[in-house]
């Protein structure tokens, strides 16, 4: 047997691997986390992109609504390129905040509250696993897939967007530097935020369904906020995206740190 350490990473890995395998074997969990990104990150851009190839459609009215000089990068493009660049290069951006937020929320509910449904939590509590190891494993098993779905989804989206736009643009227009900041910095923060919310909610909830209902009350407004604001992140200077990402990270870290402090055996065993 191994000698005990403060956090035994082998234990964390074993628990995380177990949870990830469990997700793969649960149609009720795996289907939503695959179908939602497939629709939002692939099928929706594909269909919108094909529609946006219509050279007769004008985006001038929309661009006029943008404040200040935000529309400059699009207005600098030839008329034929404006619509497809606007739609696939900017308007689809919120999906890359929504998807990790929702995937991490779904998985966190299954990972934390699901143990109560499956009546497996007490067994875990009676094992010598430390509270911190259990918490880290649960975080990882929700965060890593959310990140993977987001990144793989973006890679597929980039291919689809460039294929759809190739006939008009004759160049690769996604990803840009701003896109990379969104995907590598803001999108993981969004996943961490969803996680932080659902961890807190799941610890209070009696089962997954209750966790999802309670979590939905918080996640849905955040989703609306993301839809409303994320497109602008690609129009503002990179520093704005970095700043917004930092703010989301700080809130997410605060929520998760508080969650970790509350994640104690006594608290969990008291609610069995």
């Amino acid at each position: 047997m191994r000698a005990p350490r403060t956090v035994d990473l082998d234990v964390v890995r074993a628990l995380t691997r177990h949870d990830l395998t469990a997700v793969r074997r649960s149609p009720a969990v795996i289907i939503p986390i695959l179908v939602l990104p497939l629709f939002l990150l692939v099928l929706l851009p594909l269909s919108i992109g094909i529609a946006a190839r219509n050279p007769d459609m004008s985006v001038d009215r929309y661009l006029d609504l943008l404040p200040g000089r935000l529309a400059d990068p699009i207005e600098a493009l030839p008329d034929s390129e404006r619509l497809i660049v606007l739609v696939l290069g900017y308007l689809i951006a919120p999906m890359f905040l929504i998807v990790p937020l929702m995937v991490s929320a779904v998985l966190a509910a299954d990972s934390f509250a699901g143990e109560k449904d499956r009546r497996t939590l007490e067994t875990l509590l009676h094992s010598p696993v430390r509270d911190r190891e259990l918490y880290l494993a649960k975080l990882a098993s929700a965060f890593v897939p959310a990140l993977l779905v987001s990144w793989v989804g973006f890679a597929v989206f980039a291919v689809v967007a460039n294929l759809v736009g190739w006939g008009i643009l004759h160049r690769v227009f996604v990803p840009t530097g701003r896109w990379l900041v969104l995907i590598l910095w803001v999108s993981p923060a969004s996943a961490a935020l969803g996680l932080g919310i659902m961890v807190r909610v799941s610890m209070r909830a009696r089962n997954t369904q209750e966790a999802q209902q309670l979590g939905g009350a918080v996640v849905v407004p955040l989703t609306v906020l993301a839809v409303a604001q994320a497109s602008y992140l690609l129009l503002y200077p990179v520093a704005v995206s970095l700043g917004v990402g930092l703010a989301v990270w700080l809130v997410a870290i605060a929520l998760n740190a508080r969650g970790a402090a509350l994640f104690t055996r006594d608290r969990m065993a008291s609610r069995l």
Partner: protein
Amino acid sequence: MDVGAISSRGLSRAFASGPALVDLDLDVGSGQVLALLGPNGAGKTTTVRLLNGILRPDAGTATVLGLDPWADGEAVRRRTGVLTEQAGLDERFTAMENLVLAARLRGFSADEGRRRAGDLLERLGMGDRVDTVVQGFSTGQRKRVALARALLHEPDLLFLDEPTSGLDPSATKGVVEMIADLAREHGRTVVLCTHFLGEAGRLADRMAVLFHGRLQAEGTPAEIARRLWGTRRTEVDLGHAATPEVVALLARVPGSEAVEATDTGIAFEADERAVVADAVATLVGSGRAVFGVHTHEPTLEDVYFAVEARALRGDDAEVTA
């Protein structure tokens, strides 16, 4: 010196719904099998959770295997095995996968976990279901797999919480026999929480009875019976009702009490077995034929229901040996 496997003093815990355990004083020696008895909600599961360090006591102290279960919970749990009332197996995984995870969480390699799990599942009659997904298992099969998981690391102390609940009589018999084997081997200490008196009677050296979170009685059934009733009644078959002369003869035997004639002989009460031997010797020595002697030994059930009756009457005085 044997410091005992479990010792608690004034152990208490309350939840929002009210007190779950109040001032528990309990001692269990190494190698003993203790039956923790009581109806649902009596505090049995809370006791196990406190002793295994997954709940923090509101008051009182406990020592388990020489360690404080709350302060040294991880070390305690490395040496204990728990069979929870719900088997707690992940239904999406096979029996082997469930056990290998448990082994990994206890610091064993996956290979070592597979070896131990395979051996135990074979021994518990689940050798042919090792790679079957748990979802299709009966309650009895789940209990067996969960029992194997509790034994993977060869614990010094086993907590078995309602090990036969939900089992049919045949499966119950099998699990009880398994537990008896487990208790015998390696002098392992077992705390058996149950409200099935039959299995407790078969397995336990000592019993502790909880009602509404309070310990009502603790000791061997005989010890508790002595506390409850003081003496045991013995009936001697003389082939006919004893004469007043015989009654007087027995009344002179030191330790005999409440001597009376019965339809078939004579009856008396005594608190020591030696008094019975003296009484029989006296009868035989005086030329009386003795056809049979029956001392009423209270069963665990007799004791349990007597303790329960006291608890229901509100008599909170603890019956301890």
